[in-house]
């Protein structure tokens, strides 16, 4: 209980925003994709992922591998198999409705237009066939069709189904507030229990309703009645209000009343709660899990150093940090996320001692510091000075046995360098880099660089890093 309280109290505002955002994204997925096959498969995948976690925690190695493989494959399956369904969901809505809307005024306006148009056509006994797709793709079921891409209006619908219009015999497919296609050919139902007064229009409407989740409105040319085909059923609708309700229900517009509306609200609240609980659970398991302890060797970084001083010596260059956190977080740590910085702004020339505390260490969120080794670092600083020192050649190798190097001079004899005062006061000589004897001729001139050791030394401006060596060899007297 104490641990739980500690976890809750240790939440930062960023963590709450984190959980809130991911929960909302999950909820939006639910709102956009509910009722689709892709959503059902997604739920199945989530259950499989949960099972995999259980299998891992129970040590069922092979099971967890198999489930992991299925989940990985499932992600591809959802994208490839349900690509049209996903596309339809996204294309049918504008950015606002994708991000936060739960109902749309345009849909309501479109529904009203359709209801008025259908009612007028029924009164005039003008035959019509209107398809309102659900969440399933119609591309493979509907044939023919002429692209229309026109904004919906009563006049437009009436003109499409006007008997003299060449496209009046087919179906008009309406998506959102657009008439997408006209003269579309629908699959015919093969049912033999239909009443004899139902013609081809009714059979086509039922055929599509059997094959998909689309809603089809039929206006009978002979009797002027309105029939709605949905979920393999044909239903005669006499009232405008009822037709409007059916259409709203089909398009997911939240104007339902009574038990159905309450049921949907409850489902929505349950989905929202599930999103928050699921995200919180995942968040805690990822960011607050403490199942992994790791030791990282991290280089020390020194900041705010007085430019007139330099670091001469440090007791250590790296420290070992013992970090605890969930396996996923620990594995995803990048080197640049873990830093140990020592502030040198208050340090003096000479030896300084720093204690490494939690404040000097930056860690990614969710990772807990358990220990630092060593926790104390000695840093020796020195004031920078310039000093001129004699240069000596550092010969290596050997001359042929009968030769001796009688004379070797260096130009310039002195080179000015910049370095820590305490260090330079102890230095008496600068040496060149190793100069090989093996390649020398009888006499000659060569150049060599001054070896700067330690590397913190710098050649002062006005001095050259290169020196010229003049040498003379001669035969040895035996």
């Amino acid at each position, binding site marked *: 209980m104490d641990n739980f309280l500690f976890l809750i109290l240790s939440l930062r505002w960023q963590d709450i925003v984190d959980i809130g955002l991911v929960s909302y994204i999950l909820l939006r997925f639910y709102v956009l994709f509910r009722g689709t096959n892709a959503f059902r498969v997604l739920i199945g995948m989530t259950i499989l992922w949960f099972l995999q976690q259980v299998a891992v925690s129970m040590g069922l190695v092979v099971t967890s591998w198999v489930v992991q493989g299925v989940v990985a494959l499932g992600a591809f399956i959802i994208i490839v198999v349900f690509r049209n369904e996903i596309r339809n969901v996204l294309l049918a809505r504008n950015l606002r409705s994708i991000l936060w809307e739960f109902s749309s005024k345009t849909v309501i306006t479109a529904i009203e237009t359709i209801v008025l148009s259908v009612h007028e056509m029924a009164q005039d006994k003008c035959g019509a066939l209107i398809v309102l797709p659900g969440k399933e793709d119609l591309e493979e079921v509907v044939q023919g069709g002429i692209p229309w891409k026109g904004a919906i209006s009563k006049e437009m619908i009436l003109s499409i189904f006007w008997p003299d219009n060449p496209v009046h015999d087919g179906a008009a497919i309406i998506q959102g507030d657009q008439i997408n296609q006209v003269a579309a050919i629908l699959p015919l139902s093969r049912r033999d229990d239909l009443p004899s007064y139902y013609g081809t229009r009714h059979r086509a409407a039922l055929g599509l309703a059997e094959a998909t989740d689309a809603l089809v409105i039929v206006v009978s040319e002979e009797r002027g009645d309105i029939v709605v085909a949905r979920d393999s059923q044909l239903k005669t609708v006499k009232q405008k209000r009822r037709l409007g309700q059916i259409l709203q229900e089909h398009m997911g517009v939240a104007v339902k009343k009574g038990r159905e509306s309450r049921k949907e609200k409850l489902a929505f609240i349950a989905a929202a709660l599930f999103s928050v609980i699921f995200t919180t659970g995942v968040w805690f398991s990822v960011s607050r899990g403490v199942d992994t302890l790791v030791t990282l060797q991290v280089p020390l970084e020194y900041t705010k150093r007085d430019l007139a001083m330099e670091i001469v010596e440090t007791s250590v260059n790296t420290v070992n940090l013992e970090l605890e956190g969930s396996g996923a977080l620990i594995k995803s740590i990048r080197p640049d996320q873990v830093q140990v910085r020592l502030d040198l702004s208050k340090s003096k020339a000479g030896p300084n001692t720093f204690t490494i505390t939690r404040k000097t260490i930056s860690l990614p969120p969710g990772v807990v510091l358990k220990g630092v080794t060593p926790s104390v670092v000695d840093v020796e600083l020195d004031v920078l000075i310039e000093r001129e020192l004699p240069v000596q050649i550092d010969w*290596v190798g050997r001359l042929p046995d009968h030769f001796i190097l009688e004379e*070797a001079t260096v130009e310039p004899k002195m080179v000015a360098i910049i370095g820590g005062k305490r260090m330079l006061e102890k230095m008496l000589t600068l040496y060149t880099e190793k100069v090989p004897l093996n390649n020398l001729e009888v006499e000659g001139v060569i150049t060599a660089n001054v070896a700067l050791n330690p590397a913190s030394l710098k050649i002062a401006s006005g001095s050259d890093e290169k020196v010229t060596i003049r040498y003379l060899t001669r035969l040895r007297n035996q």
Partner: protein
Amino acid sequence: MKYPPLWLLILTLGLLLMFPLTAGSQSGNPIALVQAVLCEDILEFVPQNRTTVFSIERRTAFCFTAFDPVPQKAIIYHHWFHRDTPSARIKLTLKPPRWSTYSSIQLRVEDIGPWRVEITDDQGNIFHILRFSVTE
């Protein structure tokens, strides 16, 4: 007879008291180094095979110094440094009127690297610095 002013006498006396000290110190150390060489051997006080690089196979490195004049018995030192680390401090006696003397070190594998020999008087004043290398 007119006597010089008192302040002039005091000044003259002061100068006389000061000058013998500096002159004495100059005349007390008039020894001069006329030759300082590194060599592989010394035969009858003559340096042989003057060089600035010694192979450890040669086993010994010599530092030969000659002073002229040497007005009185004096002490000098040969300070041998491997890099900047003192390795040997050899005390040598000079006798009038002129004197040559030398010191040497034995070369070992761990001596490979740059060396120098500082030739100083007993006060630590440097007459000369010789630089050389010991190689394999």
